[in-house]
């Protein structure tokens, strides 16, 4: 087991290094010069060269990459090109809104998704089930920028229940301003929850111990809450955990539509301005979350289920 853990962590570190390398290469090879973008039309070639040198952009790529990696490892992330702030403080300011949005969106998705999955599984293949499946497919297919705008028009512009955009102050202010974007984000996650949970509930429902429970006269709701859900929810939790990566992509768009000062909108601005160190750091951060969650999932599974461990021969 110990060897497995060490190897698994090793693999994650290699993944992170690869990710850092890719993030670095991609942003450097996209055409577009950060200094020219920053200085605008009036900058002369001489000025651009001067500012480029002061930012260290004249150094060989390999040296710039080494600098970036050493920044990551030491945790001193350096200075953003365009925000005249350190990357660490920028990320610090933008972290909470994004984390709050992703958490809120996930909670909403679970609150809506779990009951829907239960109903769909219990009424499998009848019109209710079809209705739920169509609804989740449609909600998955809707681009978040579009569903976000529709929600804003209905609940903010017409009904005046919630603000159209921005990020409120205080706990309730934040909840109010994040409700519409969180719902839009939850829409993209619903299908994942409902589909996985529905199939695993159906699978568990067909097992003998459920039959035995029924034979003893337990009510459907008792069987569902006490016996089925507990066994059926594990695959959904796993899928949900790894889908956080998916949500990070979603926030780039949704934060832009709702003007939430989070990491997604920061990344968007950083890419447009070709703020190399900021883009690289944000990309590695988002990737690190996914790598870490995958690692955690694998390790927990190995801990809980000996069959997953490599070397286990008695499968």
């Amino acid at each position, binding site marked *: 087991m110990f060897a497995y853990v060490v190897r698994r962590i090793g693999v994650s570190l290699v993944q992170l290094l690869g990710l850092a390398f890719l993030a670095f290469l991609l942003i450097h090879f*996209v055409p577009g010069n950060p200094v020219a973008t920053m200085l605008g039309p009036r900058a*002369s070639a001489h000025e651009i060269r001067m500012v480029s040198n002061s930012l260290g952009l004249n150094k060989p790529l390999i040296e710039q990459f080494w600098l970036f990696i050493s920044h990551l490892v030491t945790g001193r992330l350096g200075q953003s090109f365009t*925000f*005249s702030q350190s990357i660490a403080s920028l990320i610090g300011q933008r972290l909470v809104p994004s984390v709050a949005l992703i958490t809120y969106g996930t909670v909403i998705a679970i609150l809506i998704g779990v009951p829907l999955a239960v109903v769909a599984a219990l009424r499998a293949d009848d019109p209710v089930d079809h209705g739920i499946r169509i609804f989740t497919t449609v909600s998955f*297919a809707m*681009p*978040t920028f579009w569903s976000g705008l529709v929600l804003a*028009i209905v609940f903010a512009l017409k009904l*005046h229940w919630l603000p159209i955009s921005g990020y409120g102050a205080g706990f309730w202010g934040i909840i109010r301003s994040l409700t519409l974007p969180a719902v839009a984000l939850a829409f993209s996650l619903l299908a994942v929850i409902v589909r996985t949970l529905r199939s695993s509930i159906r699978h568990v429902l067909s097992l003998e111990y459920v039959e035995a429970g029924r034979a003893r006269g337990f009510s459907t709701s008792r069987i569902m809450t006490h016996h089925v859900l507990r066994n059926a929810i594990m695959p959904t939790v796993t899928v949900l955990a790894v889908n956080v990566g998916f949500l990070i992509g979603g926030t780039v768009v949704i934060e832009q539509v709702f003007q939430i000062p989070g990491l997604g909108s920061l990344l968007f601005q950083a890419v447009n301005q070709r703020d190399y160190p900021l883009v690289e750091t944000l990309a590695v951060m988002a990737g690190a979350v996914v790598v870490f969650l995958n690692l955690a999932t694998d390790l927990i599974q190995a801990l809980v289920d000996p069959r997953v461990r490599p070397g286990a021969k008695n499968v």
Partner: protein
Amino acid sequence: MLAKYALTVSASGGEMVLFNQLEGEEVVSRMNYSKERGVLRRMGLGGAGIAMLASVVTLGALPTMSASAANGVNSSSACKSTPVKGGNLVYARQTGPSTLDPFYPTNGNGDIFADTLLYQGLVMPDPKGATQNVVPAVASSWTMSPDGLTYVFHIRPGIKFSNGQPVTAADVVYSLDTFANPKVDETAVLSGGFKSAVAVNSSTVKMTLSEPTPGLLYNMSIFDAFIVPQNLVVKEGKAFWNNPVGTGPFKLSKWVRGSSISFVRNPYYWEPGLPYLNSVTYQYASNDNTRLLDLQNGQAQIADGIPYSQVQTVQSSSNLTLQSAKVPYWVGMWMNFKDKPLADLDVRKAMEYAINRPLINTSVFKGLGTIPNSVLPQLKYDAPNSVVAPYTYDLKKAKQYMAESGYPKGFSVTFQYPSGFTEYTNLVLILQAEWAAIGINVKLISEDQATMTSLYMKGQYDLTFPYAEFTSDVTVPDEYAAFVTTYGGGGYSFYSWWNDPTIAKMVTTFTHTPSEASRAIQWPKIQAAMQDQTPFINIMDLPFLNAHQNNVCGTYLDPLGADSLQYTWIAK
């Protein structure tokens, strides 16, 4: 150089089917697969999505014209009464500041429009936008020696920074030295001609020039030469810009980076009784739809950067006024003179005559554009159409020029245009069709702004728009006339590789003539010569489009499109 953004990533699809086919244990592994694709897919939708956004919201578009106001005068009846003091204005803006250091802006107008509320220079562009002149600000008056080499500025008696500290000659000298120092002033290129500034006494500053450069005064009217308190900037260093003071009508109250910035009235502001507003909040919404929704919902009272696709929505809203301000903003198209066909004057003339500008104006710009008679934007000293004529649409003439050119059978070119702007997409499609009619085969390439600019500066283009939102920093032609005619020093005439020593010489004379009367005579000749050579094609002069609630009055923009909001008030 307003920032508008779009990514170009293509969306992949076809994953939905997956779910219907899944059962049991297999789900987990297949879901992992769909998750990995999913991230890309969502990003893709985001990129394509933001490009599409402009056309999403069209709320009950009934084409009834509401009053348009020139550079800001709201003609609605509510604004006819006497201005009242008080009120808090929320302004939905496209982009916000990255820094409040006016000497080193890193986010273009996002920085500049916040700076304009906080600081002022010795002089400023006419804040009501009625003229293209500079008017007194921190200096209440000034004199220029007849040779144009010495300026004496008299600091406004009693003027104070927003912390109550008086403005001294030492502050002015320090600020001007900063303006001319390329190490700390990003736009020090605009200080050309500046030699030195000295304090004559505590309220008088003498500025000496190395050669007559009348454009310098205009360059000093904008952000790059704002007056700041020497003692505080020296003492606090970079920290000063987090809590700065200036002589502008407002002072900083709260800055939520990436979200909003709030200002309150500067109690020491020098214009008596101004500003009217208690506070101003710039709330940032880069998404066009979000800004308009904020405005319609009353979450904001004024919004900038109204896209043409939403002009009708604003005009049909009974509580909103569309404001169209004349600014030096143009759809400037560059032709690469390293391409032989484009260096052929007959070809360029043929291209000009083949453009149906009235059609473009109505179909793309809702009739709000102005057909240009200059290859540069609308600037001071420009002659009217009666003196320098615009190119008119004449296909017969265009074909004739083409036949007489070195390329009578036509040729092929690429045309780079910025992604994410509905207007540009519509525009280039029309141009492509119009130039096809004279045998020019145009291949369209959509690029994001940073890529386009970078390819342009390397000369890797045939036809391109260097900047999607292309404006002049100042009202006088000196800046751009020099940029576009300076071939040497790595400038390549603003990366067009056009080289015309005759016009370049005319420009050099113009930019070094101190006499205002003589400049006014010289410029139309340069304008006419450039219009004749047409080294660039000005497709259209465009206004800045803002929209505000009907009861927001006095929303003047200066001739460069910046608002300092000291005359703005909210009617009951």
